């Protein structure tokens, strides 16, 4: 269990990467919502949005193989949904498939062109509840700490067993691992709280952004807005 899924391609510097987080959050959310509202029978619109997504993928420099690989995860759901195809009609299921894939790709683009830290700062500026922003921030920070501890425990466990133990034993082992990790979590939180108090914590949490909203951001947003309104307007 590695933690290289966070910010894997976020350090590239394509034009998309350089945009401010808020811009991308707005733009991609807008595109995802637009895709979800494409009517079933409008093949042209599907094609147009597919093309737009492909363009964005190209600009982003995120490896195509990676995006396609991640999109494959949606397959089981598609399979299940298409079991209902004989009744619904293949066009409807096809529409569902394309919509789902496009939305997923857009989400992948959003999260892989923005460092998680920047994403959080953007959310905070949008008025996301303070408590969630802090939680996400701590989750991000402690994911690495706890993953290391969990890996060490797993290795220690693996050193001491041969083959697969009976169900009850496995259960006990996993419960103790989880329990130990849980206790360590509580201890970390306790100490973190002491450290926060020592530095004057009283509820505020800094997320200082250095990226400023620039003309590029405005241009991109306007571009996306025009795109969405014109494609739906012309329908």
């Amino acid at each position, binding site marked *: 269990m590695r933690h290289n899924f966070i910010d894997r391609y976020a350090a590239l510097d394509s034009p998309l990467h350089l945009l401010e987080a808020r811009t991308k959050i707005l733009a991609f959310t807008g595109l995802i919502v637009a895709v979800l509202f494409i009517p079933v029978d409008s093949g042209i619109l599907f094609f147009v949005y597919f093309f737009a997504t492909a363009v964005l993928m190209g600009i982003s420099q995120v490896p195509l193989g990676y995006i396609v690989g991640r999109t494959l995860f949606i397959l089981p759901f598609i399979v299940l949904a298409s079991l209902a195809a004989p009744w619904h009609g293949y066009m409807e299921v096809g529409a569902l498939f394309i919509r789902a894939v496009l939305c997923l790709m857009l989400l992948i683009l959003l999260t892989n062109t923005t460092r*998680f*830290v920047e994403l*959080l700062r953007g959310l905070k500026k949008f008025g996301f509840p303070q408590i969630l922003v802090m939680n996400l*921030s*701590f989750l*991000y*920070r402690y994911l*690495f*700490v706890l993953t290391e501890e969990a890996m060490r425990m797993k290795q220690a466990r693996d050193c001491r067993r041969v083959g697969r133990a009976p169900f009850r034993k496995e259960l006990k082992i996993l419960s103790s691992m989880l329990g130990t990790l849980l206790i360590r979590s509580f201890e*970390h939180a306790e*100490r*973190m709280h*002491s*450290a*926060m*108090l*020592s*530095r*004057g*914590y*009283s509820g*505020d*949490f*800094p*997320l*200082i952004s*250095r990226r400023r909203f620039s003309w590029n951001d405005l241009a991109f947003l306007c571009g996306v807005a025009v795109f969405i309104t014109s494609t739906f307007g012309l329908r």
Partner: protein
Amino acid sequence: MTDYAVRITRLSYTYPDGTKALEGIDLDVLVGERIAIVGPSGAGKSTLLLHLNGILTGTGSVKIMGSNLEESNLKEIRKEVGLLFQDPNDQLFCPTVYEDVAFGPLNLSVPAAEIPRRVDKALNDAGLDHSIGSRSSHHLSLGERRRVSLATVLVMEPAILGMDEPTSNLDPRNRRHLIEVVSGLKATLIIATHDLELVLDVCSRTVLMDQGKIWADGETHDMLANAGLMGKHGLEVPLSLRSGVRST
């Protein structure tokens, strides 16, 4: 008229589960003094440090720079007393180093324009380059994390600095670097540690704690060279004193 940074009188503390952590601690520290607190594990060293800024409150009195520690003045006290905890992971909880160091001043309502300068100064004082600000702490080595943790405390410009095992788990080079940084600090220092060589390098006065009580309080060299006293409390005379490497 001597200025006391810290005056602790008959401080006792019992944990919620009943274990006595501190019993009748009396300790006076002058402004600018550098004292070490040594003792076996579980002696109560860390617990004592936590009383310096009100994280823990026991019975007895704690006076910081002349003021009693009370609920109402905790904010001012925490500006005066900086605590460096043992595990850097628990002190670095912001997404980037810059935010971690800026955390303290922001809570103290330092004006926004002032903050970058303070952060840079603190990073410098801790022996770090300003460019480390944009990095995330999990990408740093332990030595760097220790120094960043120190910076997060130094940035508040405290008069008194409490440290819990500052050199633990550091490789020799990082350890040496940290000792250099610490030696250059102007604050009153109270260092709880097992690293007796560090004590000899930095602290002129040493307090020996065991089982929640203070057993000895005096000049560092004399105390640490006293084999009988050290042995009685689960410690050893440091190597450099034994082999006669150090002269003072």
